[in-house]
């Protein structure tokens, strides 16, 4: 009997935990469970201001409920004329001065954190990544390491990583809620921010500035791995070349088609490209930022990218203009080729 009660208790405790956690949102996405420096600092300011403002709200509500309950018209008092009061100097001063004090309580940490998050004193000794926002994907260039990658950004845990961000078309905004607040990615001036992950993990990134049809599908990931793993990953990616022969024959055929139809925009080594860099495509967390990472989805994406991500940049690709240049069969070969591009042992699975 007791055991049974205990089980119920554990179960209800467990389900309460699940409910609470789900109420906070998805881990590694929600701002309520910060996993990085910026998100933590912002959450502190959010918490302070919420507490102060909730206190104000409670005061207002107490007075409000009291007056409505106490002074609402009662039966037989329809014609009672209340005393006509002009105002009260003391009260006016009280509700002017107290809010000023409360605002100072919020303003001080606000300003301290604002300066802290804009700090760039360590930029010269830190990993610096050039981030480019494009409709509707993200490109990352590790300038010093000479690595190009897209969509999945690998960083070492516990270090300040500086991001220099510029857009090549419209305004985007770089937001990894669990790691840090957002910063706009403008076409006219470079913005710099830093991120610092406290734990290893795969973090959701979102575009937060309205940028067109597939604004809601412009997701990316930050993959925070240990420092050793990161060093390994950098070395592996630096050694990527375009002319590696795949093992299977289908993949080799895929490579041939890829080199004919796709290489104009995509790169599979560390050269700059108009479209996303695909050198570690086989290790990507998703296809195009939002689709499940499997060959079936990839084939569908190649054949009809507009249905997956309306208005995306691939719609102008020559193979989509000349119907039949790439058949379903070809797409399957390309998919097999791309899926075996795994230049590094370090993958999203390493981030735990």
């Amino acid at each position, binding site marked *: 009997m007791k055991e049974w009660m205990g089980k119920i208790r554990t179960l209800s405790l467990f389900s309460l935990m699940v409910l609470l956690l789900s109420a906070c949102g*998805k881990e590694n996405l929600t701002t309520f469970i910060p996993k990085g420096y910026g998100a933590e*600092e912002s959450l502190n300011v959010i918490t302070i201001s919420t507490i102060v403002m909730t206190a104000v709200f409670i005061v207002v509500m107490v007075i409000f409920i009291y007056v409505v309950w106490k002074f609402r018209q009662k039966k037989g*008092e329809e014609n009672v004329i209340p005393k006509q009061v002009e105002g*009260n100097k003391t009260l006016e001063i009280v509700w002017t001065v107290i809010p000023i004090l409360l605002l100072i309580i919020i303003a001080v940490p606000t300003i301290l954190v604002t300066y802290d998050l804009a700090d760039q004193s360590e930029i010269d000794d830190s990993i610096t990544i050039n981030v480019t926002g494009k409709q509707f994907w993200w490109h990352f260039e590790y300038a010093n390491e000479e690595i190009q990658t897209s969509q999945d950004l690998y960083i070492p845990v516990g270090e300040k990583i500086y991001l220099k961000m510029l857009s090549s078309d419209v305004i985007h905004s770089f937001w990894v809620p669990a790691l840090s607040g957002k910063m706009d990615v403008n076409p006219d001036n470079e913005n710099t921010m830093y991120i610092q992950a406290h734990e290893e993990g795969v973090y959701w990134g979102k575009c937060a500035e*309205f940028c067109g049809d597939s604004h*809601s599908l412009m997701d990316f990931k930050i993959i925070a791995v240990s420092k050793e793993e990161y060093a390994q990953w950098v070395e592996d990616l630096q050694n990527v070349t375009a002319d590696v022969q795949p093992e299977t024959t289908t993949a080799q055929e895929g490579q041939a088609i890829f080199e004919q139809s796709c290489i104009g925009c995509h790169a599979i080594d560390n050269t700059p490209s108009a479209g996303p860099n695909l050198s570690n495509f086989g290790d990507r967390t998703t296809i195009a930022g939002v689709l499940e990472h499997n060959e079936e989805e990839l084939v569908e994406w190649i054949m009809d990218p507009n249905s997956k991500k309306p208005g995306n940049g691939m719609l102008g690709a020559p193979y989509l203009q000349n119907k039949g240049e790439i058949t379903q069969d070809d797409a399957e070969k390309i998919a097999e080729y791309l899926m075996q591009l795994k230049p590094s042992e370090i993958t999203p699975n390493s981030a735990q």
Partner: protein
Amino acid sequence: MSTMVATNKRSFGSTLWDYLTTVDHKKIAIMYLIAGGFFFIVGGLEALAIRWQLVKPMNDFVSAGLYNELITMHGTTMIFLAAMPLIFAFMNAVVPLQIGARDVAFPFLNSLGFWLFLFGGILLNVGWITGGAADAGWTAYAPLSIISPGEGVDYYVLGLQISGAGTLIGGINFLVTIVNMRAPGMTYMRMPLFTWTAFVASALILFAFPALTVGLFLMMFDRLFGSGFFDPNMGGNAVIWQHLFWIFGHPEVYILALPAFGIFSEIISTFSKKRLFGYSAMVFATVLIGFLGFMVWAHHMFTVGMGPAANSIFAVATMAIAIPTGIKIFNWLFTLWGGNITINTAMLYSLGFIPTFTMGGMTGVMVAAASADYQYHDSYFVVAHFHYVIVGGVVFALFAATHYWWPKMFGKILNETLGKITFWLFFIGFHMTFFIQHFLGLMGMPRRYWVYLEDQNLDLGNAISTVGAFLMGLGTIVLLYNVVITSVKGEKVGPDPWDARTLEWAIPSPPPFYNFKQLPLIRGLDPLWIEKTEGRSGMTPAEPIGDIHMPNNSILPFVMSLGFFIAGFGFIYQKYDAIWLSLIFIGMGIALGAMLTRSIKDDLGYHIHKEDLEKEAKE
């Protein structure tokens, strides 16, 4: 000659002509009410489509392109074509009566302002039927708005330009009216708070709208004539648009919110049967909010990359606005304190407003904290915040004003039971829709997302939000039914059905077209209340009965606006083919011709003769 004819039984044609040509502020108010109400329903239907798309993850109710048009047009319609004109409806209906004036200072311009707004509003929506409305967000950030294909954003630019001119004209008109046309004894510090807020809001219009005008012109050149003001590739600067837009856009919030505060001040004071607590502090707070409203625009741009110094300054300036707003909240609470509170529909909205708007203000201070805003910005938290302010503040005020001033405008009281049903549906629906969105935002849901992915714990919140939105829709349907049923079956009421305090309740409902037979003598704040407490039934006249000078009706404002409307199409389509330039010439020709006619043709108005007024009094 006199034109005092009983106007009850007239043909539809002559009624229509009367409204097309009218310069009477009361009729213009009714037109603003109808047009604003129509656009409110359009914007509401767009909102319901948005919420239905978001009812479940990866929904495909509308396409991405259509969704972007819906969000853009929902925002633009609600702000410019619903909230603004509805505020103008009540300013027109009430302000001249509250200050004891026979009309606004420039009745002709008043009519012009309305027709410009209406034709601009129609032009904005033409995109729906010509292959796509504006789709770059109601803020139309460059360069997205510059590269948006089709004519949608062109309609946005031209439509807003025309209706914005109407608003600017309206604002100037009310400034001059309030400065010049107050009845004898109506000093500034005896003006009712609604008039005060209308006054400050008009000043804000005067200073804020030119920034929008400039921005829209630059955008028009960029889109239609190949300039590059906002195009970084041509040496332009995209961020400048954001500054121009928000230098207008932030005061715009107060242009809407201040008159809303005025409406609540009138209603709370009337139904508590008490003088407004701390009247002079309320006036001071109104002016201060208006002033500070111009100092804070960049808090919409904390993530743009302005640097920590600018962000901190704008954060603190923004927080400062909470102080005068707090003063207002407490003054309302203490107006209620010790009162004899009647809770009817108008009062329900006012009471519902206090906690709702306080929450909007709370989150306002929270988003003002720049370093916290990095998380809130462009997420559903911000969507929740501004709906708490604009629906909880402005829409509640408009609904309250509808119930409060309906008898003055139409001579009948809206059905109270239906009114209360609307309130509860709308109030509960509102909080259901938007409260949860604070959390959705912080859980990682950015704003303007056409779809959200599965398995991100956003499903439940969005589903609840959608249900709430439909409750609000239901409430609005009940309100419409209420308006119809009251018009058909409602009973006529006298001049002062609420036992109210201000001047508009001293004259018949609806008022005669000349408002006041004799201008009243104002002896203090709440002039009618003063007379009533001294045992008189109405105002003491400040002048003997005499001839009343009235303006003539004119079709010219309608013609002028039509001309600009036609020219708008020419400006847009000339980008495809120069033949369309002809429309610019035709349209501008009509508009300028109408202006010329107005300028060279003397229009001195007419007089209602003393004898007619006396004869009418005997009947």
